[in-house]
């Protein structure tokens, strides 16, 4: 859907104002929207910020506001926009319905998100009895990596790696998500900062 992508890139700056205008209205949140689009919400978050950054905006913070309108209408709008692209947007701006335009923009970013989100490699790691399972991981080069660390122990652990530039506390019996940028081939070691015996490595090829 090249036309949609274009829309996302060029329309976002114009839509900033309308997104802010929407901040007071009630409606589905990002997470709910994501569920509706059947895209894991963590992927949405990542792609969303990337989209926004490409358009030169400081962060995606502005887009985290709640959206107006309810489910069915929203879905119709999403598809309408994927079909209509720029044309729909311009029309909406012309009739000055800012809230609708903002919903469309968000819909488009979401629509294009699933395509880009596939870039990231997702890696599941379990932490139990003070050990990583598995401790040797693999990932392809030049693609972002998302670690999902499942801490089965009652105590907290800290997933840390100097070479990956990450450091994250994962409380006992919870999951932690750790984002890593695209990596060059090599071996990247990680460990539990609260327990030196727990070690592992990610081999990037």
């Amino acid at each position, binding site marked *: 859907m090249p036309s949609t992508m274009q829309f996302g890139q060029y329309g976002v700056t114009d839509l900033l104002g309308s997104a802010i205008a929407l901040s007071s209205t009630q409606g589905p949140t*990002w*997470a709910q929207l994501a569920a509706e689009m059947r895209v894991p*919400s*963590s992927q*949405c*978050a*990542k792609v969303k*910020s*990337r989209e926004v*950054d*490409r358009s030169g905006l400081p*962060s*995606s*913070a502005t887009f985290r506001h709640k959206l107006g309108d309810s489910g069915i209408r929203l879905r119709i709008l999403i598809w309408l926009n994927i079909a209509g692209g720029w044309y729909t947007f311009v029309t909406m701006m012309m009739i000055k319905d800012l809230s609708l335009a903002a919903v469309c923009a968000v819909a488009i970013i979401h629509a294009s998100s699933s395509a880009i989100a596939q870039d990231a490699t997702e890696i599941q790691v379990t932490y139990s009895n003070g050990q990583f399972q598995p401790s040797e991981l693999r990932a392809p080069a030049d693609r972002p990596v998302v670690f999902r660390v499942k801490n089965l122990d*009652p*105590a*907290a652990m*800290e997933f840390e790696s*100097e*070479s990956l*530039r*990450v450091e*994250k*506390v*994962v*409380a*006992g*019996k*919870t*999951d*932690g*998500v*750790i*984002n890593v*940028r695209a990596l060059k081939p090599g071996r990247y070691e990680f460990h539990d*900062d*609260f327990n*030196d015996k727990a070690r592992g490595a990610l081999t990037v090829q």
Partner: protein
Amino acid sequence: MLAALIIVFREVFEAGLIVGIVLAVTGEVPNRNRWIGGGALAGGLAACLVAAFAGALSELFEGMGQELFNAAILLVAVLMLTWHNVWMARHGREIAGELRAVGQAVADGSKPLLALAVVVGVAVLREGSEVALFLYGVATSDGGSGMSFLAGGLMGLVLGGAVCLMTYQGLMRIPPRALFASTTMLITLLAAGMAAQAVAFLERANWLTSLDRVMWNSSRLLPDRSLAGRTLHTLVGYTDQPTEMQLVVYIAVIVATFVLMRLTAPSQGGRPGHAVRAA
């Protein structure tokens, strides 16, 4: 026990440095102990709260709650430090001069104290929540080794306090006039370093993705994890693998601080010596 000591000390170390600097900066400002102590206490309590709800905090913002929370409190600290510097550029010289005891200066002096108390609170909160999580995990694990770990952890805490005291004593050896200039620089770099850290957290949360190329890798020369690396990390924001955005923000904070200080400094005073002499 030694492992626990090292882990806790590593976390407490940075907070100790920051508290030591703030104590030195506030020098003999009246009531400062109450403010700084209050900040540290509030930070400690908040750290326990954060530790207790660490799981829930993590789940916010699609699993990025921790990163965003850290970035947010760091940015608050950056704002407070910058504001303190700007405030001191305007009023500080009167206080640094002989007017310290005058009632007005005392009343004014509590304003930057609040800012610095917040900074101390943030430092203690950030490092403390990890210590609390770690010690809690240790305490709930098997009895005997748990107790020795806990003892090690407490010793780590005491050592962290010693770092704070040493920093303070070291800075207090600097003559007062030179101290004012050097603490301004120190606080500016502290703020810039914290801003760069906040950028790192936003990058990890994928909220900041532009300019994310790593500029250089000096981890062989001076790794972040070494004692010297950690000290420089806290004091001047040293990182062995900074991204472009981190560097940009770092420089921007320094420039912004100096521009703001220049803009708000009293025009008649001009240079440090003048105002004091006039007083």
